[in-house]
């Protein structure tokens, strides 16, 4: 690292402990103006803690944070912190009922005679947006904006405050492919304009694409800091997970081929016929699909193509207007997750915080929630011991890390929360697993583990899998991949490994070679 350049932000010997967990141990990290530093690490490695300390939300137990070489302001002086450093979180924090300009100048509106100067606010907002070439109307209400535009508003708000250090926490998590490309252009422009960026992501290819340097956290320690050009993907993964070997994609490809040969002649387990459903996040306009017994079918498409909606409709958490859904020849009641579950569907929802678990309840209770009626004895009496015994093998199978199965799920890291959600789906020994983006926000090793578990379950129990995802790593475990465009099946690919360019072309609605056109 260049010694002459003054670091925009510096963490020096930062340590932090929560109870018996050492979240960070003696971490040194520096952000330079005009450079983008990637921060990677597994779930629970300490990334969130480091972000909180760098952005003044948490005080370190020891060590310090410095801005441009001088000590950081007091923790209580949030305004001072925000003028130095701002974090754009995974989940949007804009106020939906206010306009873009109001959000940019939230709580520090330009004033005249003590009253808000609306005209100056709009002019200033427009100025900031124009300076960085952001295409958003300052007078628009934020509730009407796309996810991408809201993110722009948050970045603009930071820049308008004079902040020249940005922490981007999983900024691509909710963006579709084009949105990601535009975000990268924006980040490059920011870096070229002298902004220091800390880019936190589980997607290593993104880090290689836009970061000049990368830092790796493992178990609270900074184990590697290096320019990205001197590293390859494998070295980075090794740094993240330590010495744990990760299963290769090739192995999974073979497994999938084996299964597909077996499944070709099997019975039709799930039949979806001409389903029409309206949803703000992607409607279905006559989608049809067949999943055979023991088969793993991938489902992909752009944001808004109805991929998640189709998964939700099958699992019963979203209703539909017309069409039919049959499981083993029997129709499912629209919009009734309880009857879908009773019919044999296990559901891994898209948003685990919203639908995946009850945070205040213990792990074992969440894992067995889907089978509570089955575990209950006479008169519906349900012994906690039986639930705990039923949950134990699932926790082992998924290598759940916790301080005991009585721990509330709220206290687990994101990856382990997802394991609880997956366990809940598997507990009912389903005939069909509907999984929507099951590996989102999960670290590399846990992701492999979850995909392995899904392969294992389909192979050993003969369950079918419908896996809705836009991650090609997920789709790789599927015997077939079905592409949705504007709520209809557009193309289908079989025989993994899949060609990612062809898949992308199909999601964009371009007819690719090598697929079965519908």
């Amino acid at each position, binding site marked *: 690292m260049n010694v002459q350049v003054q670091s925009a932000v510096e963490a020096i010997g930062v340590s932090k402990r929560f*109870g*018996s967990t050492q979240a960070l141990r003696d971490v040194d990290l520096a952000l330079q103006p005009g450079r983008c530093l990637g921060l990677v690490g597994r779930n629970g490695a300490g990334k969130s803690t480091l972000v909180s300390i760098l952005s003044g939300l948490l005080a370190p137990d020891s060590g310090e944070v410095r801005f441009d070489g001088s000590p950081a302001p007091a923790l209580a002086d949030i305004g001072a912190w925000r003028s130095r450093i701002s974090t754009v979180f995974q989940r949007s924090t804009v106020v939906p009922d206010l306009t873009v300009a109001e959000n940019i100048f939230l709580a520090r509106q330009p004033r005249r005679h003590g009253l808000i100067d609306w005209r100056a606010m709009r002019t200033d907002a427009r100025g900031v947006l124009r300076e960085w070439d952001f295409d958003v109307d300052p007078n628009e209400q934020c509730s009407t904006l796309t996810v991408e535009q809201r993110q722009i508003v948050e970045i603009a708000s930071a820049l308008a405050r004079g902040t020249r250090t940005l922490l981007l926490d999983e900024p691509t998590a909710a963006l579709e492919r084009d949105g990601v490309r535009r975000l990268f252009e924006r980040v490059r422009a920011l870096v070229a304009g002298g902004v220091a960026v800390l880019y936190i992501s589980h997607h290593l290819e993104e880090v290689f694409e836009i970061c000049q340097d990368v830092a790796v956290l493992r178990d609270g320690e900074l184990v590697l800091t290096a320019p990205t050009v001197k590293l390859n993907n494998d070295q980075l993964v090794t740094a993240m997970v330590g010495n744990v070997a990760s299963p290769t994609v090739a192995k999974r490809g073979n497994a999938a081929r084996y299964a597909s040969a077996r499944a070709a002649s099997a019975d039709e387990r799930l039949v979806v016929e001409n389903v029409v459903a309206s949803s703000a996040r992607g409607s279905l306009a006559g989608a049809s699909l067949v999943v055979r017994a023991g088969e793993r079918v991938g489902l992909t498409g752009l944001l808004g193509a109805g991929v998640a909606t189709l998964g939700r409709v099958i*699992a019963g*958490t979203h209703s539909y207007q017309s069409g039919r859904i049959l499981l083993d020849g029997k129709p499912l009641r629209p919009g009734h*997750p*309880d009857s*879908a*579950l*009773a019919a044999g569907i296990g*559901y891994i*929802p898209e948003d685990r915080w*919203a*639908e*995946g*678990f*009850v*945070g*205040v*309840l*213990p792990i*074992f*209770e*969440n894992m067995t*929630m*889907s089978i*509570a*009626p089955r*575990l*209950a004895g006479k*008169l*519906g*009496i*349900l*012994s*906690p*011991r039986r639930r*705990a015994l039923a949950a*134990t093998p699932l926790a082992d199978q998924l290598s759940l890390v*916790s*301080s*005991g*199965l*009585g*721990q509330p799920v709220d206290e687990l890291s994101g990856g382990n929360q997802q394991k609880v959600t997956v366990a*809940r789906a598997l507990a*009912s020994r389903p005939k069909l697993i509907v999984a929507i983006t099951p590996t989102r926000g999960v670290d590399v090793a846990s992701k492999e583990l979850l995909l392995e578990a899904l392969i294992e379950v389909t192979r050993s129990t003969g369950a079918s899998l419908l896996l809705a995802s836009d991650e090609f790593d997920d789709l790789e475990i599927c015997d077939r991949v079905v592409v949705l465009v504007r709520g209809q099946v557009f193309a289908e690919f079989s025989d993994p490994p899949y060609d990612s360019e062809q898949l992308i072309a199909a999601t964009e609605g371009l007819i690719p070679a090598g697929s079965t056109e519908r």
Partner: protein
Amino acid sequence: MTDVSDRELVATDLATPSSEHRARRRAAVAFVRGAALLPVLVVLVIIGALVSPHFFTTSNLTGVGQQISALGVVVVGESLIIMIGGMDLSLESTYGLAPMVAAWLILPKVDFGLGTDFSPAIGILALLAVGALVGLINGLAIVKVRLNGFIFTLAMTIILAGIQSGIVSGQTLFNLPSGFAYLGTAYVGGVPVSLLVTAAIFIIVGLFLRYHRVGRSIYAVGGNREAARAAGIRVDRIRIGVYVAGGVLAAIGGLMEAGRVSAVTGQQGYGEGIIFNVFAAAVIGGVSLKGGRGGMLGAACGVVLLGLVQNILDLGSVNSYWIEAIDGSVILLALLMARGIGGEVTAE
């Protein structure tokens, strides 16, 4: 505390030795939250003994027991509703209306009854039916029609109180038959029957919440409704069921109160404004207004605390014009203390 024993059990059965002490500590913390009020109750008993020699007499203590019994049954109902993430202000009116309708159907015309002269048994069935019906209306309106629970039950409160005085033209119904008044007046072995019944209700509901799958579903629905739905729990049915149970329990509480004072007045419930005490007891006892947390031990402690405070103020010959201000302040103090002991769980 409902989760406590579960956690303890898992901790001893399944946790690895290295993590066992952590799980134990968690269980201990959860238990302290549930029983946080026990030391406060001890202090109140000591204060009571110091304030008046009359405090430790049988007649005073059984009186307190009778008074808190009626309130306690309503607190059980409200706690269940709060636990599923709802609220029902109209329980206080059900508490007045249900016994009023029942007495009205029982009593002869000279006593301002309807003149149907039903037997007390039918009257009690009618009382339970009124409670169930009001709960069903609330449940359907809130769960199916998706009206705001606060506003809808506020309107119901006023409507029901209006019916309560309307059907008897504002009269008070005396001369309740002994069968009808039994629950609120009788003693068994020197203990009020109402207190025994209320204690039984607390214990049964507490066990139900801990060991029955519907009880566990109540926590799941309150903790995260959508997750509960996705896990196959019939959320709507449970929510409506809890509103119905709340209405029935409020009606039973009303029956106790009517028996205790040997009359049904137009003031019972809404006119007395008991709903503040009902919410206060539940929340002081650790039932979280966010839903999903709390239990019957805490709620019972909350009820006893309010009863003791009221009794001490009565015995302490506090100027009656000031009693409400002091009562309210003590409740506020109890809330703050419960928050201090129970962390963020209690008084949010």
